[in-house]
């Protein structure tokens, strides 16, 4: 009995300590004296690896999810004779919810796990130590550009996802199901509000980007530097960031859209 309580206490303390370390990492890499001139090429390279290379999966998933939404929305709405509203349904679902959330989940799997594995392997092969001994702070050189790249890439990916998804929905509704093009777009434009829906969606995407990148980079930086440790850290990145995204999505939705 006492043993179990002690185990619980120890694991709580471990969690708290690692939360503290992750906060410290974020602070030291982002806030303490940045060096923008050196940073820029590194940042560009990371945006390439994190953002550009995630484009294909984002575009393909966005297109299919939009098409499925169009199809499903139509079959439900047609019973009520309001299939004209399918555009509005597709757009609102994508912009408010699916684009930020699904992009964040895909981002965690595609870019987050790669970040963790890369940084973990750098740690295991003493590349981080050797940077330190050369007198270069790995938090600035390795961690900071990756964090910024994630923060920047994620909202862009989500916006692209939403647009491609709406395009997919339009394709299905207009070309295949034969909904009148004018009413498809007009209905959508009447119900989607730029600041209320689009901007809130972008804010969500940014928050998810911060959380996922932070978790991914920290798990790599803090991992046990062995092959087993790296594989566990990579798994943790995907699990923790997916849970964090879904949980945060609920909170943000309640804050943003709860009173409408």
């Amino acid at each position, binding site marked *: 009995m006492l043993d179990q309580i002690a185990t619980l206490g120890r694991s709580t303390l471990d969690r708290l300590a690692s939360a503290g370390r992750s906060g410290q990492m974020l602070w*030291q890499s982002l806030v*303490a*004296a940045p060096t923008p001139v*050196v940073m820029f090429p590194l940042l560009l390279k990371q945006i390439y690896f994190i953002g550009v290379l995630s484009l294909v999966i984002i575009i393909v998933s966005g297109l299919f999810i939009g098409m499925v939404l169009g199809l499903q929305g139509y079959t439900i709405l047609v019973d009520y004779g309001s299939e004209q509203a399918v555009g509005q349904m597709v757009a609102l679902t994508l912009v408010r919810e699916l684009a930020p959330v699904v992009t964040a989940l895909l981002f965690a799997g595609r870019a987050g796990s790669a970040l963790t594995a890369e940084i973990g392997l750098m740690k295991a*092969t*003493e*590349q981080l*130590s*050797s*940077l*330190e*001994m*050369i*007198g*270069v*702070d790995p938090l600035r050189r390795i961690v900071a550009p990756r964090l910024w790249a994630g923060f920047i890439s994620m909202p862009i990916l989500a916006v692209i996802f939403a647009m491609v998804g709406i395009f997919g929905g339009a394709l299905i509704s207009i070309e295949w199901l034969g909904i009148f093009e004018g009413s498809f777009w007009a209905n959508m434009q009447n119900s989607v509000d730029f600041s209320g829906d689009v901007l809130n969606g972008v804010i969500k995407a940014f928050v998810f980007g911060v959380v996922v990148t932070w978790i991914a980079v920290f798990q790599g930086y803090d991992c046990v530097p062995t092959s087993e440790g790296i594989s566990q850290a990579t798994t943790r990145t995907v699990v923790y960031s997916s849970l964090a995204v879904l949980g945060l999505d609920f909170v943000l939705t309640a804050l943003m859209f709860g009173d409408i």
Partner: protein
Amino acid sequence: MSMHNSSESIIDIQGLSFSRGTRKIFRNVNMEIPRGKITAIMGPSGTGKTTLLKLIGGQLRPDTGQIKIDGEDVHRLSRQQLFSLRERMGMLFQSGALFTDMSVYDNVAFPIKVHTDLPDDMIRDIVLLKLQAVGLRGARDLMPSELSGGMARRVALARAISLDPAIVMYDEPFTGQDPIAKGVLVKLIRMINKALGHTSIIVSHDIQETLSIADHIFLLSDGHVIASGTPAQLLKDDTEQVKQFMQGLPDGPVPFHFSDDDLLQDLYTQESPNA
């Protein structure tokens, strides 16, 4: 720079204790590493030689005691100060630790690029000279994954000395080198030390090579400095432990095995597998 400090020793270690988990790696160790000399640190595998270098570089924090470099307490420095102190140090990691996303050339050029504003052609000259010194000028365009273990270590050595740091720490520079390369590296280390007057710290198991270049040797075992002195003094030392280590005898007071449990006892202890 404050490197022209008049005192004899450049690194001063006082009352150092350090433990990993419950294992005590160092117990109250005192060492003074002389300025401008080649100091060797020797001892059985697993005594903490690499750990000592990391403590000196400020990557690990001692439990008690202090390490002063040029009068500055390494573990009292701010992060910023620590990084600027490290610009004056070079370290060859036991594993080499080359940056895998850069070519050999870029690896060696890296410290110069981040710490100086030298023009590109000047950096090129320096890098080629360093690579020439370790015999790998022809490998400059290879990636680290394309190097053999011995080559990778020599590239890492070239990188460690690319900025001509005032203190160079070599963690087992001779391991995995053929006899010719060993001879070249011995000469190289000696030359860096004599020509530039820089302090070198070598961790090595190669008694022949180490004796031939070291000015001073510390022998570590079991968390203590068990002997120190010039190579000649250590060779003459007739305490059992020192003799055993210097002559490479398998039996003696220096334990070869990691833990001292009796083998027979270990073998005959009946332990249920899931205990």
